């Protein structure tokens, strides 16, 4: 992972080379691609928030819920991990209107990707909670804490630190999955790229820039999560 910056440099130089070789043509499609990138970022942020919420709910239901809730959580996790993100996206986009539910494409995109990544996230949350030392639970019992309070005040804050790196990977997966929303008519980065490709035929430049933009966003997520990790680990790691 520490080699990401290196890859970035290589690609940036590659693009710079292309830019210099055809600068005039470049300026016309940058604004359009940036508009697309803004949509991609919106979906990534919306989807990530939904994913975190769904993951927490599903993991808690699977671990501590009453039996019917537990089954529901298991079904949710297995169905969303077992089918393709694209199939889920199309299902929400084409099938829900038949049941009288009309969501706009943005809502479909955020819901589908959030639910998809949330299912993977639920397993991350479960793993992190299980990885908290058993002694922490026992100490909470000894201090006469109710289970819910112990979970909220003692276990989850410690699990949170362990969750950050895998969540970083999931957010990158989500960012990459947002490219799919171009197939349900949302004008994200990928959609704009295809549109411009059809009008300008500057295929090489357009798709290279798009790859670089996605790479830059991934690096941004990696850097952000690293910062969050150092920030969150303060004070907690000391206890071990």
């Amino acid at each position, binding site marked *: 992972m520490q080699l990401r910056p290196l890859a970035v440099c*290589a690609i940036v130089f590659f693009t710079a080379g292309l830019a210099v070789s055809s600068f005039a043509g470049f300026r016309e499609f940058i604004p359009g691609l940036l508009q697309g990138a803004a949509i991609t970022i919106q979906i990534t942020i919306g989807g990530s928030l939904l994913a975190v919420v769904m993951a927490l709910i599903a993991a808690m239901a699977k671990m501590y819920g009453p039996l019917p809730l537990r089954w529901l959580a298991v079904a949710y996790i297995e169905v969303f991990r077992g089918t*393709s993100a694209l199939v889920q996206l199309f299902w929400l986009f084409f099938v829900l209107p038949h049941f009288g539910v009309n969501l706009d494409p943005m809502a479909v995109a955020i819901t589908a990707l959030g639910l998809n990544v949330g299912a993977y996230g639920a397993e991350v949350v479960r793993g992190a909670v299980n990885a908290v030392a058993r002694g922490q639970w026992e100490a909470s019992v000894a201090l006469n804490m109710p289970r819910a309070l112990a979970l909220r005040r003692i276990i989850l804050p410690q699990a949170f630190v362990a969750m950050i790196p895998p969540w970083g990977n999931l957010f990158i997966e989500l960012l990459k999955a947002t*490219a799919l929303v*171009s197939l349900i008519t949302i004008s994200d980065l990928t959609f704009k790229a295809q549109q411009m490709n059809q009008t300008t035929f500057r*295929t090489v430049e357009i798709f*290279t820039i798009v790859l670089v933009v996605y790479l830059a966003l991934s690096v941004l997520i990696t850097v952000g999560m690293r910062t969050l990790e150092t920030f969150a680990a303060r004070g907690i790691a000391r206890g071990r």
Partner: protein
Amino acid sequence: MFWDWNYVWEITPTLLRASVVTIQATLLGFLLAAVLGLVLAILRMSKTGWISVTAAGFVEFIRSTPVLIQIFFIFFVFPEFGIVLPAMAAGVIALGLHYGSYCSEVYRAGLENVPKGQWEASTALNLSPYITFRDIIIPQAIPPVVPALGNYLVALFKETPLLSAIAVLELMQTAKILGSQSFRYVEPITLVGGFFLVMSLVAAAFIRQLEAYLNRTLRNPGGAR
């Protein structure tokens, strides 16, 4: 009327035929990924600085960008350089490249887990590096990572609907065409979802069995009970 069984029976044969394409793409893509992954892992572990850095940069780059863009890149950009590929080939290559770079990390973990003493013993026995690698290191490095590779096989399988974006007639594309012909999307898309779910669950169960089997035999080399 939400669900029409007659329509389901009508489209099932078409979807089954399309699922053959999906499975072909999965197997070919994974074959490429498995081979390419091993090559990338070996290059990344090379002692020559620029080789390992280039391989690492390539792997990180592929892993950080969407596979859909990679499919478009191979399908639309390669022809600019005179490499014209049919849609299916472009899709398989893109999936193979993408998952190859994931697999390379898995192989790397496996290779790094082989104790250094194995290399030293081979040197002591005067085996050439190639023979050492082929007959001593690989047989010890690969079996423990087979379940992890299996997980990527399932992940690749679930990505094949992306090939519909470049009009490969696989399951998703066929379901969409059926839907647009009859204006009934509920049945085809639900069936496709069900197909993926069943295949993934079966594959996951199979991988668990394989993992258990490998754990038993690896702890007990030579099969002695």
